[in-house]
């Protein structure tokens, strides 16, 4: 349950006041479309994977309008909790399932599953064009972004860097990107300095970094791709030299530590149902289009091959 469910409720309250209008016309004929599949698929889990799952559901529904797909965003951990209790069919995850905590719960409830990598995720660190930094180390990033940080300019973390006053931009605390960045850079999920401009709207982050001479921010790599000309992309050095994010460095994991694989876990029980099987096969076959729609980094050909074989193993039960 997310707050977005509040909006229809509010609208309902208003509508009740305005009119007691009747007759919902939803029972219009919708059969006879492309697919003759029907049923419900319950997906929950990582909020980072959710846009991908949502885009997949929409594309899938174009061919199979009678399959109802719900995509929840309880977070990777919360998703596995429901999944291992047998409440959901597919769990979205931005990390592999935990061997010591989550796997035993699934086993206890005899929920068997497959692990299918469906996309790649990467975070881009960007600055204003005037603040042309080529590279930052993970330690420097931590000094800038950690809780209680008083860093005012890049010169505070490295005297060789410009002393333009920084103005910081980042995603809001609800996004998977925020969780991932704070976990990898600051060492604990959700821990951050407080005086930065947060926005759930990545375009607003781009506007801010582009507009301020000392603008520095981070967001999903795909948003950088849409604003390449306006921003300066910063490489990250985690000890093995400086690597700039690109589809390739994110896919092969050399862009460390801000790249990671994204997974869907279908349960074997669910995948025995034709609609779930068709959906998972659709996802793997169309991952490039779905990734594009969801603004996320697609799989490599090799990764697609692995996903296909994972899926086959899962289907054989």
């Amino acid at each position, binding site marked *: 349950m997310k*707050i977005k469910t509040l909006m229809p409720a509010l609208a309902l309250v208003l509508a009740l*006041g305005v009119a007691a209008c009747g007759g919902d016309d939803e029972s219009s004929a919708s059969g006879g479309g492309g697919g003759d599949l029907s049923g419900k698929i319950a997906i929950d889990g990582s909020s980072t994977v959710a846009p991908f799952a949502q885009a997949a559901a929409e594309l899938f529904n174009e061919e199979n309008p009678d399959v109802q797909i719900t995509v929840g965003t309880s977070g990777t951990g919360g998703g596995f909790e429901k999944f291992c209790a047998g409440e959901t069919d597919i769990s979205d995850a931005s990390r592999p399932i935990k061997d010591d905590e989550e796997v035993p719960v699934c086993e206890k409830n005899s929920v068997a599953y497959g692990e299918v990598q469906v996309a790649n995720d990467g975070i881009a660190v960007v600055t204003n064009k005037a603040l042309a930094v080529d590279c930052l180390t993970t330690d420097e990033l931590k000094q800038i972004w950690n809780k209680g940080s008083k860093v005012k300019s890049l010169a505070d973390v490295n005297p060789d860097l410009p002393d333009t006053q920084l103005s910081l931009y980042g995603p809001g605390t*609800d996004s998977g990107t925020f969780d991932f960045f704070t976990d990898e850079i600051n060492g604990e999920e959700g821990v951050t300095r407080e*005086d930065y*401009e*947060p*926005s759930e709207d990545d375009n607003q982050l781009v*506007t801010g970094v582009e507009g301020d001479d000392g603008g520095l921010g981070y967001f999903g790599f795909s948003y950088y791709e849409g604003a390449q000309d306006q921003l300066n992309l910063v490489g990250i050095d985690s000890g093995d030299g400086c690597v700039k994010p690109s589809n390739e460095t994110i896919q092969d994991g050399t862009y460390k530590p801000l790249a990671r694989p994204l997974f869907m876990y279908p349960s074997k029980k669910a995948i025995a149902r034709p609609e779930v099987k068709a959906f998972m096969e659709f996802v793997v076959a169309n991952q490039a289009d779905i990734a594009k729609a969801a603004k996320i980094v697609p799989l490599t050909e090799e990764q697609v091959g692995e996903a296909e074989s994972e899926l086959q193993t899962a289907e054989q039960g």
Partner: protein
Amino acid sequence: MTSLAYSRTRRSVGEQAVRYGLFAAAAVSIVTTTLIILSLLRETIAFFGDVPLGDFLFGTKWTPLLGGDQQSFGVIPLLTGTLYLTAIGLVVAIPLGLLAAIYLSEYAPQRVRRVVKPVLELLAGVPTIVFGYFALVFFTPEVLRGVFGLEVNQFNALSAGIILGLLVLPTIASVAEDALSAVPASLREGAFGLGASKLQVSLRVVFPAALSGVVAALILGASRAVGETVIILVAGGQVARLGTDPTVGYQSMAAFIAATSRGDIPTGSIKFETIFVVGMALFVMTLALNAVSIRLVNRYRQVYE
């Protein structure tokens, strides 16, 4: 005889239907208001079950969306941010609005007034999102940085506040003009008869006579500014901070509600409840402002009717 009785019944049935229909229409607003207050109250009570009232009212750090020991529920930064942005807006809107009102009421020829007043009211009809992006993509970079050479952040209080002022300007000008025009002509004529100049009549006779109406106009404008969301959301930044530096951004109460409800906050969590608590605080603030302005308007009416 029968036909008379028949028509009487039919008539009274019709009358009844109209009566209930009209009552239902009037009841909609009351029912809606009551439901809104109830929904705010429920979450507000739940919130204060977890957070002491004192921490909320007097705390100086507002970071309800962070986790662990970084989470803090002091509403002061939101409150001061709201008031600060409103103050900047009013510094712009009050002088311009009052001067425009005096001009329209006392100086402008009928012809000019017939054109200017509708145009002024048209400004009040511009969607606030348009004002917001006007501030963000035009006023900040082109005017503040370009014309005045100020070093402001992309999201800053100055730009959002000034444009907020432009938003409430028509409200203030229009209501104040009504108040000034309502001053009886006999007062003006008396003053002219004593040899007063036009300026003296406007400022020393008409303006003081309309003062309570003018003050009501100012409060209505302030109330509008306090509750304005979109301009601040778009152009004013989203950092809840204490301070008075106009070149950086601040978060207002309404903008916090809008920004937070766009995210994925789990219902029932304390983060979710903060939306309603801030809504409640905002509701109480604007209610107080409106109550004061209604009182003033009533007082002013008693004098001249």
